[in-house]
């Protein structure tokens, strides 16, 4: 990997992340490494490493982060957040970072698909008559979809 020139990085990125809902804590990180030790994903895939991602964000490696595939690997288990002695809600910080990536249209296709599903049905799984009949057979009440609300909410 080529040498990174700090003068070319984007010092404002950390402040941008901090302005997102949930992203507030990012700058408090003092790199104790407890988060990585608690992360189940790091243990199976070294591309994902909480303290490295925070570091990259703090340094302002904006492009590399937003266009990466690893930021999407967070399983949102909150393990990192629980062990952080500086109250960095890293799970929320990850969401904030992903939101910034999404705003630049760097998103895995599956996720945008889910958004379309919600707009169309108000749920991840369409409720067809088949579903409701199956439910009724088990004595369960029918389910209604409210696509109009979700479509309105999601614009």
């Amino acid at each position: 990997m080529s040498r990174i020139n700090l003068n070319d990085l984007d010092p404002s990125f950390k402040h941008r992340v901090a302005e997102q809902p949930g992203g507030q804590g990012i700058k408090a990180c003092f790199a104790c490494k407890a988060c990585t030790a608690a992360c189940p994903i790091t243990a199976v895939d070294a591309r994902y490493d909480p303290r490295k991602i925070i570091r990259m964000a703090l340094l302002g490696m904006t492009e590399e982060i937003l266009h990466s595939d690893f930021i999407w690997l967070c399983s949102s288990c909150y393990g990192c957040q629980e062990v952080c002695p500086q109250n960095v809600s890293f799970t929320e910080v990850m969401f904030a970072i992903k939101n910034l990536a999404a705003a630049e249209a760097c998103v895995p296709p599956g996720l945008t698909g889910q958004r379309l599903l919600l707009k169309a049905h108000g749920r991840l799984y369409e409720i067809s008559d088949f579903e409701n009949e199956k439910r009724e057979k088990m004595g369960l009440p029918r389910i209604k979809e409210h696509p109009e609300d979700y479509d309105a909410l999601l614009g």
Partner: protein
Amino acid sequence: METDALIVGAGVAGLWSAWELALHGATATIVEAAPYPGGHVARFCCKATGRCQKCGACLLEDVLRKVRGSDRITTLLGSTVLEASDTDRGFDLTLLCRPPRIFPDRCDGCGACTDVCPVPGALVQSPFDRRMVLDQQRCLRFQGGECRACEEACTRGAVNLDMPAQKIPVSASAVVLAAGFRPFDPLEKPRLGYGRVPGVVTAAELDELIRTDKWFPGAGASRTRSVAFIQCVGSRDAKIGRNYCSRVCCGYALRLARLLRSRYPDIEPTMFYMDIQSFERDFEARLGEAAREARLIRSMPAEIRTGSDGRPEVVYEGMDEKRVAEPYDMVVLSVGISPGQSLGNLCSTFGIDLNSDGFLGPDGEAVTTSQDGLFVAGAVQAPRSIEDSVSHAIKAAAAADRYLRRMANREKQ
């Protein structure tokens, strides 16, 4: 009863301020809740490894010797301050003084009382001789119960549960609060396994075992070789409201590690840390030495759990950036310094506030408080090493002496 200075706490800071005040010619009365003087330091061992490691624990015995030899100092053990009000001449206080429940001249330290005592820690051996002392703040009988088990068990008639406690009015011109600290309770961090995972102890527990000659590495397969020290347990932790460095634990852990190694050279200490704090004037020059004595790992563990072989396992991010679960024979938690238990009471009794870290008195290093004539000394005000507590206590005594002189001059005029 009248005294120039009333000192709350007979730990190393309280004793030292009393001694310094006595050197100035003042009279000092020390009020101590515990049945023996010395506070936490009374449970610490000497960390010398053939040469002194400057832990400062011997400063307690030094000052006790001085205080014992001074006729200007009165020490009231088993006593607490019930009330205080300030007057134009200083403070009017009411003390609750509990008589010693075990006559030292009759007790031979046989331990028969401890064997039958239902409350752990209520009857303990004095740190300075082999005799027993009763902590009346734990004893059932003094907490509204009816237990007399110890009295019945003692064959030498040394136990005395009936003499009533007395309320004693005292007027003092100055008060020095030296009520000390509370070691951070590692149960507040359950993920570190304390009280649950066998082999996890606090540094202070290990220290006391060494002082009383009760710690041995064992033998054979169960011999203790690998020892992990976990730093910053309850320090540098904003999550639990302790975003301050306890200042002493790096030195404490490294000294303990050196001590263990000097006694048992096959012991291999590892230290998990964030930043190593200097604890000696020439520490930086010796940091390399420390690195040879203990494996230093800059990484905070996420968890300590019981491993498959029953030993404690430290889960941390290792050097190769992988999550590692490493078994150790013993894990020592370097618990931090927390504000003392009685601080809330002292605040309301004396009308002062806690500082931003939750300790008593002002921020920083000052010894004066918002109340005239009221001083703080030692770890009651901020985390301090023994040596720094003594230094702080000397300053508190200096400030109290100045105040006493000012008051005396005013009275003359």
